[in-house]
């Protein structure tokens, strides 16, 4: 009896819905959520932007995936050696979402730069939803040798 009920409930859900959530996405969500979101089980309101870090020819390239956000809505700050990328957009509350897996209206992500980062020459560009920040490095001054006279 339970089975029939379940099946009926499932069918009703399936037919009413646009899309059956895939298991893959649940895993994604858990692995990509900050720990506090996972443990409190709160519905995730904002999406944490994912980052890639690459190195090429002595320059670090940090790319942040922020699709759907306009260039003017993103700010990049450098506080000593801490690079902070954030956004705050007024949300349209009228929109009726049938499925919502992402929302980049409000986020903040910070990175601590290594000591060899040339913080005066950081540059950024924003294209197709990817914010690319280039961080050149300076040659590190090695440990100083002191001659014994």
């Amino acid at each position, binding site marked *: 009896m339970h089975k029939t009920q379940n099946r009926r409930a499932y069918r009703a859900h399936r037919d009413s819905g*646009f*899309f*059956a959530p895939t298991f893959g996405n649940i895993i994604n969500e858990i692995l990509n959520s900050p*720990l506090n979101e996972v443990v409190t089980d709160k519905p995730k309101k904002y999406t*944490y932007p994912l980052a890639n*870090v690459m190195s*090429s020819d002595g320059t670090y390239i940090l790319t942040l995936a922020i699709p759907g956000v306009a260039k003017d809505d993103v700010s990049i700050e450098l506080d000593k050696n801490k690079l902070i990328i954030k956004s705050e957009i007024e949300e349209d509350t009228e929109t009726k979402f049938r499925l919502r*897996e992402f929302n980049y209206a409000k986020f*903040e992500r910070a990175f601590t730069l290594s000591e060899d980062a040339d913080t005066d020459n950081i540059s950024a560009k924003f294209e*197709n939803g990817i914010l690319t920040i280039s961080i050149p490095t300076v040659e590190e001054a090695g440990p100083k040798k002191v001659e014994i006279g």
Partner: protein
Amino acid sequence: MNTNGTTSNPAFGSLIDGLFNRSISDIVGADYTNESPSVNIIETDDSFEIEVAAPGLSKEDFAISIEKDHLNVSAKSEETNSEISFKRKEYDFKVFSRKFRLPKTVDKETIKAKYDLGILKITVDKTPEAKEKGPRTIDID
């Protein structure tokens, strides 16, 4: 730190997110790369809008097809740069595929798509019958 007081891994290993910003994959040590773009589906009076968050691609990389009552969205980008080495990889949307079941209330002939700001937006209109069925107010005489 090694014995002479310098960090053993001076590169971007020291590029760490703020403590409370960290994803669980950093803590458990699993290096997880998200390869499946997130999706929003918006319903308006006349249509459904499917937003696929697939940044960093170009319009030509996408393929959209309809198979019976399923909408398939996939992407394949050839772009690779062997000069670049990854230090950290949280996303990679170069190759993916997602499938959606279309409700009976949509007109499959009306599908349109547009790629802007890293979002592929697919719009499909509701059938005239479905549009009419929407809530309406009835005047009291």
